[in-house]
């Protein structure tokens, strides 16, 4: 489980996150949602340690990331996997080398063991026979899958996904969402997904945190997101024409 307490962050005097607290549970996707510019990605970066919050703490199964020494930080980081918005695959390496990279640098596994593990992870995300392709030769959806394979190759305890559906068609988005949900359950990881995609929220939103202008405004599940009674959340959820027409038609969400 990951617990965050009173996370605040400002840039050049402008408050981006203001006292965010909450916890993210194991074995299911935990969603952080909100409109663009509300601080979702900044919060995620504070959680993984890419940005240091001005105040607050982040606890990984009780271990304080920011209070710990350098070794603890490295230990926690080596238990993390992260899927970046643009996949962040290494341009100079092919798919196999990208997925194998954490094993090459962080483990002492033999070449055969590493290759087996890479092939297993690629198969797990539905990719086969693409090992020797370069990132520039595969589609956006495939890049995301390779990014997920790289994130899980080291058996992480914590998985972070920053806008996993951005730039993908609806069908591929659903596949990626399902993959994240299945992996979280199967590997019993604490997964945090930053998104503003309504399909993701209604699909895998077992636990959702809604941010508005740097504040946590609401927390709940996909089952009660449409009847929260929070004006900011309603504006966000029903900004979509499909959701508006479903509400007009009296759909029971």
């Amino acid at each position, binding site marked *: 489980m990951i617990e965050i307490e009173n996370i605040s962050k400002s840039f050049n005097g402008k408050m981006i996150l203001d006292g965010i607290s909450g916890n993210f549970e194991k074995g299911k996707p935990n969603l952080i949602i909100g409109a663009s510019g509300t601080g979702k990605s900044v919060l995620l970066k504070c959680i993984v340690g890419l940005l240091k919050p001005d105040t607050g703490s982040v606890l990984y199964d009780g271990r304080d990331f920011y209070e710990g020494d350098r070794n603890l930080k490295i230990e926690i980081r*080596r238990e993390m996997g992260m899927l*970046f918005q643009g996949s*962040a695959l290494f341009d100079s390496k092919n798919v196999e080398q990208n997925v194998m*990279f*954490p094993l090459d640098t*962080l483990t002492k596994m033999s070449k055969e063991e590493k290759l087996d593990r890479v092939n297993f992870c690629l198969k797990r995300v539905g990719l086969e026979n693409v090992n020797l392709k370069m990132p520039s030769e595969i589609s956006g959806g495939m890049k995301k899958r390779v990014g997920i394979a790289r994130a899980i190759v080291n058996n992480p305890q914590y998985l972070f996904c920053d806008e996993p559906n951005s730039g993908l068609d609806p069908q591929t988005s659903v596949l990626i969402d399902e993959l994240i949900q299945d992996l979280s359950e199967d590997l019993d990881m604490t997964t945090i997904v930053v998104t503003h995609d309504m399909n993701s929220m209604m699909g895998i939103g077992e636990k959702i945190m809604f941010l508005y202008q740097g504040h946590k405004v609401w927390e709940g599940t996909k089952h009660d997101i449409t009847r929260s009674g929070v004006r900011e959340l309603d504006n966000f959820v029903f900004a979509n024409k499909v959701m508006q027409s479903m509400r007009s038609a009296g759909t029971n969400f």
Partner: protein
Amino acid sequence: MITEIGKYFIFLRNLFVNRESFGTYYKLVLEESVSIGLGSLFLVALVATFMGAVTTVQTAFNMVSPLIPNFVISQVVREMTILELAPTIIAVIYAGKVGSSMAGGLGTMRITEQIDALEVMGINSVSYLVLPKIIASILMYPLLVIIAGVCALAGGYLVGTVTEIITPNDYVYGIRYAFNPFTVTFALIKSVVFAFLVASISSFQGYYTQGGALEVGVSSTKAVTNSVIAVLLSDYFLAQLLLGK
């Protein structure tokens, strides 16, 4: 300005903190060495050859007194090449080619979150990405300077003898006349310092790129400008320190 310099020294310190295994660096240094060394060889050889040829012609043009023997032409070419043209002028070319490439590459990695990906994996990205570049640069640039020196002297010989400015015997005699081996040591010391400056300054500019494609271009330009300024300043200080009276 002061903040930037402070940030640069913290950046240099981070090169040696939480390093990866020796084997990891060995492979990366080899890859970088091939890229830096072989990748720059043609341009360096071309520039140096023409530099030597032009220096020969211009030195001959300026030697109007019949009292000065012809072999002085190649003696002047030798001194200019070893002391200044090969290490310093080639460093400017090197900053333009290798430095901008380093800054561009790291800048692109930064804006596409590849550096963040390394950090999240628990890898010290400064050490992993930059240290091999600096080591490879320090290993390769002195070799490039030696090759540049040879090419410049060969270029001078070729042009000098073909255009009958100087006879082959005079050229070779001038090259060997009153040769002080310390000039070569001095050139190699300079080349190590320049290699370090170009690689570290360019990597620093690229590593801290913020924004998008436009900023990557700005970082590359700043990398070249700052590297060239650092090279010229250190050139003066080294000359004063090692050759000054």
